[in-house]
């Protein structure tokens, strides 16, 4: 194994910039490792070896000629297979779209291409992003690099596993109820769901329009900040895009948390949590307090209705998108998502609209809270990722429904559209645990900075996924 694959963008970029590392060497190392680990992890849907090596040669030439484009120039990266690449198949890891070819690049793809990213291929996902296991009936399960029997989380499970294992130096995920943050937490990486409207969704196959987001999935917080600077920005092609200036996110990542006010909501975000996860998250908060942060307890009463609002909104919107295929070719869906599409036909228009009223009130309560505190910290997930094929998870010895529980703490970020970051905060046994940081709208810089302060406490203690130690 080539050690290059384990390095972050932040570590590799100076080597590429000063020409001590060739993008061609790096790209070949990542592709070699990705192809070798595919049998065990199954994170890729397609490899673009030939084009990637050609693009890397071009990047190398540009850098030699003094045309260095920035941090991501020459970085070999694969993306989730619901992001359109011009003239390439984008499957959504589905049977129905297995031959779908887009005639344009998604905005995020175009922006990364312009930043000099080398695309190594497309990554597996839960079919149509409508699930959190990545146990795909058409293309096989993606496996968690920390324990091959466990799910990597989803729906961006291919992205989570590939970044954790070094099969992609960084990646993008999409997040409708937690699909960036869930696999980031389960795979021990960093995942940021930005503010709704901050990153264009043009050229991303939708799951639920009003809840969908695109964001970075990376090895480090600085890598996420650097990627966010590239993919952010107003886009007329996306009706939900918001015209707000792009911040210097990297510049805000200093790790200084002196006088930071951390909000803790006990009633919802620390209710029914795995005891070990609870302890790890509280220990991380204490480490921030030791550095000068303060903690305030906050109330957000409408959170009690958020699970219902998230379910009704996501089920209804997803079923509207797939209504025709559900009528005409239902057997072409995997059984689990066909069930969810059937379920999504049941809520009434009144249910849907009342769910939007819940969202409106929830947003107001979060806004009020962020008048008093700078960020909210909670566990990303209340449970540890279960074994592949199980629909239940263990919660302090109790068997609980997997989907309902795994999205409990991530869903409010989608309902409100507020930025939410998952960073590793330790381990339970052999499985990593994530901590979630939420902030006010467009406060990604602040949220990333708090994540960086936690990252600096070395919660992963240098441990590497099992696949490396058992290779």
């Amino acid at each position, binding site marked *: 194994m080539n050690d290059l694959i384990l390095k972050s963008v932040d570590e590799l970029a100076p080597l590429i910039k000063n020409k001590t590392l060739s993008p061609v060497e790096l790209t070949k190392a990542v592709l070699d490792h990705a192809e070798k680990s595919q049998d065990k992890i199954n994170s890729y849907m397609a490899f673009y070896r030939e084009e990637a090596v050609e693009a890397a040669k071009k990047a190398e030439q540009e850098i030699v000629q003094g045309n260095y484009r920035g941090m991501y120039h020459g970085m070999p990266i694969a993306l989730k297979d619901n992001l359109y690449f011009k003239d390439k198949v984008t499957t959504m890891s589905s049977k129905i779209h297995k031959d779908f070819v887009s005639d344009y690049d998604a905005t995020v793809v175009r922006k990364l291409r312009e930043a000099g990213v080398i695309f190594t291929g497309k990554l597996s996902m839960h079919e149509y992003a409508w699930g959190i296991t990545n146990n795909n009936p058409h293309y096989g399960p993606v496996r968690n690099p920390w324990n091959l029997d466990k799910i990597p989380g989803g729906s961006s499970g291919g992205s989570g596993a590939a970044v954790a294992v070094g099969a992609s130096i960084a990646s993008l995920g999409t997040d409708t109820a937690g699909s960036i943050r869930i696999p980031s937490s389960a795979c021990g990486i960093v995942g940021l769901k930005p503010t709704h409207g901050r990153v264009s969704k043009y050229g991303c196959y939708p799951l639920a329009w009003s809840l969908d987001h695109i964001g970075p999935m990376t090895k480090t917080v600085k890598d996420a900040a650097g990627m966010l600077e590239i993919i952010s920005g107003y886009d007329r092609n996306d009706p939900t895009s918001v015209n707000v200036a792009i911040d210097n996110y990297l510049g805000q990542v200093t790790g200084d948390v002196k006088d930071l006010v951390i909000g803790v909501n006990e009633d919802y975000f620390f209710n029914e949590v795995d005891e070990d996860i609870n302890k790890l998250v509280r220990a991380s908060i204490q480490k921030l307090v030791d550095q000068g942060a303060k903690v305030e307890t906050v109330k957000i009463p409408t959170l009690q209705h958020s699970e*219902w609002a998230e379910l009704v909104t996501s089920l209804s919107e997803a079923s509207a998108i797939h209504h025709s295929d559900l009528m005409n070719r239902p057997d072409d869906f995997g059984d689990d998502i066909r069930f969810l599409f059937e379920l999504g036909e049941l809520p009434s228009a009144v249910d849907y609209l009342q769910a939007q009223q819940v969202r409106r009130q929830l947003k107001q309560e979060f806004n009020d809270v962020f008048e008093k505190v700078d960020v909210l910290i909670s566990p990303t997930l209340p449970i540890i990722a279960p074994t592949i094929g199980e629909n239940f998870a263990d919660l302090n010895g109790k068997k609980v429904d997997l989907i309902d529980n795994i999205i409990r703490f991530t869903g409010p970020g989608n309902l409100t559209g507020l930025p939410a970051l998952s960073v590793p905060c330790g381990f339970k046994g052999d499985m990593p645990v994530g901590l979630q940081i939420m902030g006010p709208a467009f406060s990604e810089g602040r949220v990333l900075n708090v994540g960086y302060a936690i990252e600096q406490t070395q919660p992963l203690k240098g441990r590497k996924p099992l696949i490396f130690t058992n290779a």
Partner: protein
Amino acid sequence: MSLSIQELLENKGIPVKKDHVESLQVKWEGIQALRGSLEGVNIDDADISLKNIPGGDHIDE
């Protein structure tokens, strides 16, 4: 007269997988229980959050 979930879906032209019927019933009852009475939510008099923006989605300054 109340329709079963299977009838509701089939009336919409959606063929329901037989072994889903029971689980759909359970899950749907669960969602309704989760809804409860929406106590504390300002359903009646708050303006709806869906927006109607004249001139399109993006207004240029």
